[in-house]
């Protein structure tokens, strides 16, 4: 049986990013950055370079160091070693100047729930020293499609509206760089798709985006490039299609059946040097196009290799 993975059907074709006039070539430059919390090394000699105009997906399991990296970039954590440069400002010394030109959308909803939608935006417009606060609020309300709810308290909004507002708040200063920390974590699929459209619009408009996520689909749909992070390090980086081809080949065959049969399939595939990984109730033979001599059973579901295959192979974690 052969299927085309739905993700690949929907994946938006995109070109290499065009350099933006006046932007530094690299908007984020992290060089050998280390951050420790006691005995735990959350970020371990991390090198990360984000060119202007791209959306870089920082993909990794929980505890990979993604959120700590985000906090380092906003000056809310100070690196123990290494150098950080954001928008041509050295951190942490000139973090405040860098933050003035960044937008941040946090993982957790930290809106003021009793306050109106427009006041939530106006406060942040002031914090970012936006000259025309009213115009900025109106623009963000339109972006979040919340103009008709502007005078409602936030706790009257649905989960999706709150998430859109959170995103709009991060854009109140029209940032050159947007940090999205797990932007759709815990949201239902409909709201997630809604947010993806918004983020994709920003990406198309030339905003440089660094997005941490542990959702494979999110990274695959939105990111121009993906950096796979685990144990505080980037262990692979590239365009999603290139990463898939490099680490997972062209096809993956999934085999379902009782444990004894799966063990047999696993052993046979392994004997041919193929990579086999667990995939929920099945086993997945990665790079199955290279299999010979019945290593892939006839009833296997053969699909295009995906970023999920890469993620699981590189991190050893089941994908979200």
């Amino acid at each position, binding site marked *: 049986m052969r299927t085309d993975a739905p993700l690949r059907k929907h994946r938006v074709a995109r070109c290499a990013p065009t350099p933006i006039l006046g932007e530094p070539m690299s908007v984020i430059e992290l060089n050998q950055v280390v951050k420790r*919390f006691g005995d735990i090394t959350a970020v371990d000699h991390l090198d990360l370079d984000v060119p202007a105009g791209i959306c870089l997906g920082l993909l990794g399991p929980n505890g990979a160091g993604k959120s700590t990296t985000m906090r380092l970039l906003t000056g*809310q954590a100070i690196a123990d070693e290494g150098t950080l440069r954001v928008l041509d400002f050295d951190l942490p010394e000139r973090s405040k100047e860098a933050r003035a030109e960044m937008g*941040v959308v946090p993982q957790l909803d930290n809106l*003021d729930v*009793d306050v109106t939608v427009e006041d939530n935006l*106006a*406060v942040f417009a*002031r*914090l970012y020293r936006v000259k025309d606060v009213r115009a900025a609020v109106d623009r963000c309300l339109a972006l979040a499609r919340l103009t008709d709810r502007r005078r409602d308290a936030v706790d009257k909004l649905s989960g999706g509206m709150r998430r859109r507002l959170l995103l709009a708040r991060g854009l109140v200063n029209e940032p050159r760089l947007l940090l999205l920390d797990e932007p759709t974590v815990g949201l239902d699929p409909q709201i997630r798709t809604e947010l993806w459209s918004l983020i994709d619009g920003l990406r198309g408009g030339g905003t440089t985006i660094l997005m941490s996520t542990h959702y494979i689909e999110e990274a695959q749909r939105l990111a121009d490039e993906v950096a796979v992070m685990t144990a505080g390090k980037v262990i692979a980086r590239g365009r999603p299609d290139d990463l898939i081809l490099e680490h997972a080949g062209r096809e993956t065959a999934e085999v379902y059946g009782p444990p004894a049969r799966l063990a047999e399939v696993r052993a046979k595939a392994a004997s041919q040097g193929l990579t086999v990984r667990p995939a929920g109730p099945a086993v997945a033979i990665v790079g199955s196009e290279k299999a010979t001599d019945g290593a892939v059973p006839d009833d296997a579901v053969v699909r295009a290799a995906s970023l999920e295959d890469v993620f699981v192979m590189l991190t050893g974690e089941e994908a979200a």
Partner: protein
Amino acid sequence: MRRLEPAAIGGIMSREVANFRTFWKSTVFSSTLEPVVYLLAFGLGLGSTVVKKVDGLDYVEFVGTGMVATAVIFSSALPAMFGTFVKHRFQRTYDAILAAPVDVEELVTAEMLWIGLRAGFFGTFPLIVSMAFGLDPSPGMLLVPLFGFVTALGFAGFGIATAATVSKIDQFSYVTTLFITPLFLVAGTFFPIDQLPKGVQIAAEFNPLHQLVELVRHACFGFEATDLLRLAALIVFALALWRVAVNRMEKRLID
């Protein structure tokens, strides 16, 4: 970008104003009713049966002026403690603010200023209520909001520093019992401190609330030469606690 930018401080205070607009009625209600209850219980109850005059003042006047300090500490130290803890741990408000071009010093300064302004304003309510119970207005009373503001700054700093130090919200009980209640009781609000043992009297001189009580009484009934020293001591108290609060919050908020 320079330190303590007015735009950053103003932005944070505008957030406080936006939030305050959602609960100002309950604050006005409690700020008005509380002194009424105290004045009825202590002023009219105790004052009409047991104590007629204290330090040459009617007991209602003595308690009414002293209660400014009570209002100031309860509308500064407690909101600073609980508000800071909740905004940091539960609402994650400070994560959002510090992701903007705002530093911890500006954040703490804005929070202290807002609490100080609020406490300075609501601290005058006992005086206004006392007027209904017979306290005569005087020009010096116009300075009471300033005295309340300066003292509240110090207690706001104390509350913020405390919130940045404790690990659980229930640990505030220790702080309230061990620090706030004794400060409030030996401030000279309900009885003059010169009736206390000498050691306690000396300790009370270091109590900022006692200095506030004295300043308010003198503002109402005539200033003394030492009042400038008292005000200076309250300013030093506010400045010292400001730095302590900034230091504690930097340790708490920046990893």
